[in-house]
């Protein structure tokens, strides 16, 4: 999920950089050197995983996974996502320098919110944890879609319909991300629970 360059207005670009600077700042501060390798390699995994296309009916969508990365990294999701997005810009021209702030905020802010909302619930027994994992995947994408829509709308009110379309096309993806997050967290819980918060 990203916004192409040239679409955003000056104030929105500035706001995006402000949020991202704060988030990356907190993330880097919390990132002691014990965890630099981990964050870098998980960022790489996040980058690669988001290239996976899953079938959605006759078409396909690529995964977003910011819910999972939020649960795994907490605030460090900010620098990790910023780096991954810069690499996406370099490799695929998804976004560029001016949109880096907004695009990072769109993905990382929901990741951190979901971390605070759902991380404590993952340790609870069966159903609660599963529901939390599913909601985490769903909500992270939903919030990202809303932020993306908002960034478009605040850039130019004429983007209202475009923003609405962008948000609504993400509805099936939210559900799929919910399931993927549910199963993925279930996997981690069985195989390497110490990775979860």
């Amino acid at each position, binding site marked *: 999920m990203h916004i*192409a*360059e*040239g*679409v*955003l207005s*000056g104030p929105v670009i500035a706001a995006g950089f402000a949020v991202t600077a704060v988030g990356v700042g907190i993330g*880097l501060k919390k*990132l*002691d*050197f*014990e965890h*630099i*390798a*981990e*964050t*870098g*390699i*998980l*960022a*790489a*995994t996040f*980058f*690669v*995983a988001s*290239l996976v296309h*899953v*079938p*959605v009916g006759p078409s396909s969508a690529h*995964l977003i*996974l910011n819910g*999972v990365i939020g649960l*795994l990294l907490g605030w460090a999701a900010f620098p*990790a996502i910023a*780096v*991954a997005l810069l*690499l996406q*810009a*370099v*490799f*695929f*021209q998804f976004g*560029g*320098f*001016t949109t880096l702030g907004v695009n990072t905020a769109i993905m990382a802010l929901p990741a951190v919110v979901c971390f605070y909302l759902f991380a404590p619930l993952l340790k609870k027994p069966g159903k609660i944890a599963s529901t939390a994992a599913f909601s985490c995947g769903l909500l992270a994408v939903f919030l990202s879609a809303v932020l993306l829509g908002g960034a478009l709308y605040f850039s130019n009110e*004429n983007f*209202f*319909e*475009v923003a609405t379309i962008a948000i609504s096309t993400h509805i099936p993806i939210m559900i799929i991300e919910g*399931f*993927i*997050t*549910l*199963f*993925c967290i*279930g*996997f*981690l819980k069985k*195989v*390497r629970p110490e*990775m979860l918060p």
Partner: protein
Amino acid sequence: MIQETFSQGHSPIHNLTPRTRTLAAILLAFIIASCHELMPLLMALGGAIILIFTARLNLFKAGRRLLVIAGFLLLIWIVLPLTCGGPVIWQNSFLKIGQTGIDLALELTLKTSSMLLIFLALISTMSTADLAHALHSLKLPPKLVLLLLITYRYIFLIEDELQTMLRAAKIRNFQPGTSLHCYKTYANLLGMLFVRSAERAQRVHKAMLCRAFDGHFHSLTEYHNRPQDYCFLGFILILSVVIIIGEWQIVTLPAIF
């Protein structure tokens, strides 16, 4: 397969230091992002095309990169003329096409494509390692630079792991479809990818300790500007000024400040 298609090459652009190119790309991107008028945007597109030719990029491959934004542009060309109002250009009983939407769609098309082409010509012509060092010399926090270098180093390895696992699923007759079995399989595959990455991260951290790493990142790269770097920066400055003047002539001063 992730590839750095344009990073190798011989051209006046490839001969510039990565720092010069990065600085120029960032400057131009922010200037173009703040423009709204036709003339300066046409000039920006002209500049972008000159840069693409100077970088001697394979035009076919470069053109294909424009497809990245094609979907989005198609969407706005369909939606905006119908929804933004303004003087009516054409209408029937259901639809009304307005001038405002067309102007906006044109502005976005010019902006997006010129920014993409500039990025392609200046940034995609270096390896990401070079970009990281350039950003370091432009005062990006060292920790973030190190993160960028590590992420870049491992994406290829991890992509390879992912592709191999997908192949392993394929030879066991896995067929993707819209089904829970499919999503569950992908989720497990990705879970395994995350677990393997976390294990690898532990080993990498240990390997870093073995080489006396203490959290401080020292870059090896030093940049020395050569005449061509100054010439190029001069050209970029002139282009920027021309674009800004183009924008100013129409927008009155108080509106910008």
